[in-house]
């Protein structure tokens, strides 16, 4: 019987997506991007009003009005596209994965119509760097701190034949004691706060902590609930953030590799 399944599997074409096609890919996530040239103060104000998680805000920077977009809060609901009148589009590529929280913020000057986000120290994983990140094992322990299970579904998808995480030497382990990296999803609920701390303590140092999803990054739609403590960094220190609601497998991989890159390629 197992041969029948094997036979069917072998009849299928190879589905594995090359890593180059995964990095920066965000298809199916509906993360927003801003076209600076079309931005006006009125549109910016509408974006702030329509955003359910306050990912958009208007700030003053050096006396000039700016639109601020924080991907940590964004749940990719798409409600900003219509009032954005062309100034907000679904991002064709998305590389704000695995970065420190400060680097998830983008700023646009509303008068000069230009992006004024301070440049990232290392903009993107370079093709030449990819190979140097592999060849070493990375053991990941996934920890659900109170997620809705959307992030779990996408993390599980990383092991399917399209993404095949094992080809990079990355695998999921059953115990935090075997882990190099904690991949933490969900807002940290009051009921899970203790278990999250215990799990963190059980991971041997040096360890990498990655907050996954809008909830993990900021509390997301659950921020402010009486039963939620906050994002992952409200309880344990975090090395990198992967936004999205949920982040797609490609975004997760981009984020995991980015955190790894910052640790190994300095």
């Amino acid at each position, binding site marked *: 019987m197992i041969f029948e399944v094997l036979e069917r599997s072998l009849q299928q074409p190879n589905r594995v997506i090359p890593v180059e096609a995964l990095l920066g890919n965000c298809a199916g996530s509906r993360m927003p991007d801003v076209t600076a040239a079309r931005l006006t103060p009125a549109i910016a104000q509408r974006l702030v009003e329509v955003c359910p998680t306050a990912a958009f805000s208007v700030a003053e920077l050096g006396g000039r009005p700016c639109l601020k977009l924080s991907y940590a809060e964004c749940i990719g609901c798409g409600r900003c596209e219509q009032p954005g009148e062309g100034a907000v589009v679904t991002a064709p590529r998305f590389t704000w994965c695995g970065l420190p929280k400060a680097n998830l913020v983008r700023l646009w000057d509303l008068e000069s119509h230009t992006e004024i986000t301070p440049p990232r120290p290392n903009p993107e994983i370079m093709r030449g760097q990819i190979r140097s990140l592999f060849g070493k094992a990375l053991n990941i322990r996934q920890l659900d701190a109170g997620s809705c299970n*959307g992030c*779990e579904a996408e993390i*599980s998808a990383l092991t399917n034949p399209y993404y095949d995480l094992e080809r990079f030497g990355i695998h999921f382990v059953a115990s935090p004691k075997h882990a190099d990296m904690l991949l933490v999803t969900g807002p940290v609920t*009051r009921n899970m706060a203790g278990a999250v701390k215990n799990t963190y303590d059980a991971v041997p140092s040096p360890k990498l902590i990655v907050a996954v999803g809008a909830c993990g990054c900021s509390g997301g739609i659950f921020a402010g609930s009486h039963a939620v403590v906050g994002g992952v960094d409200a309880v344990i220190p975090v090395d990198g953030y992967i936004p999205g609601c949920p982040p797609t497998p490609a975004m997760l991989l981009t984020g995991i590799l980015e955190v790894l890159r910052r640790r190994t390629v300095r």
Partner: protein
Amino acid sequence: MNDNTPEAVPIGERGPTGPPLVLPRGKTESVARLVTVFGSLGVDREKRVHYVFDVGAPKYWEAFVAASGPVRSIVSEVPAAAWYERELHDQYGIEITEHPDLRPLVFHENWPEGVHPMVDAVNQVPWASREYKFLTVQGDGVAEVAVGPVHAGIIEPGHFRFSVVGDTVLHLELRHFYTHKGTEKLFEGSFVNAGAMIAESVSGDNCFAHAVAYSQAVENACRAEVPPRASAIRLIGLELERLVSHISDLGGLCTDVGFSVAAAYAARLKEFLLRASADCTGTRYWRGIAVPGGLRFDLDSEKVLGLSQAVSLAARQFADLARVILGTPSIQNRFETAGVVSLEVARDLAVVGPVARASGIDLDVRRDHPYGHYKSAQFEVPVTHYGDVMARAKIRIKEAAISARLIQQIAGALPIGSVLAPLELDGAMHGSSAVESPRGELFYWLQGRDGRLTRCHIKSPSFQNWPAMPFAIADNIIADFPLINKSFNLSYSGCDR
């Protein structure tokens, strides 16, 4: 509930400000099935307990009693009410008399006593340290095995306390609500349109069912008519979610018995459908599409047809895979007679969804309480009576094929027109709605005023089905627990909310 209160009436025929109602007398054992029990606050902030029953009619029946004083438990007549009443006790501080077990359900040891978030404003809840007593099983050779809340795989947190003799489980006690996020409280004060986003985050893998159930409740409250095109596309989304969920479940069952080739095959089919969804809708899980009144945006008919072709291909390959899996002797050996839920247990605990249908309960919201496009759709409801892992697997395999057929039928004949109806939001609103989610009956009840919600209750199928798990695992070996658990496919977040 006392005896001089009038009979219950179908929801919608009398508002919540009417006289106190009771459940239909004499119907509790034979016909009526408990749907949910929940609390609310009246205009004068008086506490109320609502009971919703399915009495075999298309309309659900609702009863409520004032709860300024103690309320008698209905657990002895309706065992399925046990967790609901514990939740009421926690969230509303309603005194429940004659309840056999009123230990805290939702709030763990770090919540102080006397905090009732659904009644009082709670911003900063102080940290406390209380005690929780697990039930202890005593006797020669009885050992306890504690599992969780952090489990070994990529799954949600919950605690299982097994009492075993050797390999055999005598008793399992569940300790859940680790992912409790105060979701029902979050709805309070939010605009009806924003509520859809909260509903989508109740249980991520069933987000579309939640968004549709919530939206329908608002539409019923506002008496809005959803355009035919929107309700047809909703049906496609709901059936696709079921198909993906069932494929994923069968793959998960294979993982849990070490049949990894078949599990990888199922995972490939699931991913294929998620990618087809992203091509068609821009989102892998149909998030941000259903809103009160219809859909937030229209889908391209050509792309829907493309999705339908992908579904047809995946369903054919899944049927073939399922045939091979079920024909494998070692699978039969593991699936058959494992984790039996008897008809009696299923009925007493009012279980829903594939778990109910695998135990001989002929129940499907799509057929029994038709909504949206299901009012005109033709489909069968598979039922079997063995109640074991194999029965639940077979129900899901059959349902997956039916879902695929429904998608192809509807996608080939999509109505044209708008996808969003305007909502009349002025004044008081009160409505409810149910959807057959992949896990079973999902019920939303809400009330509000001028477009803002004052209360939204979610009956999730997982909350209903979890209490049946200890009955399914009893007398099985503990090593079969992951398999039996997977065969229920329950959401922790959906249960904990």
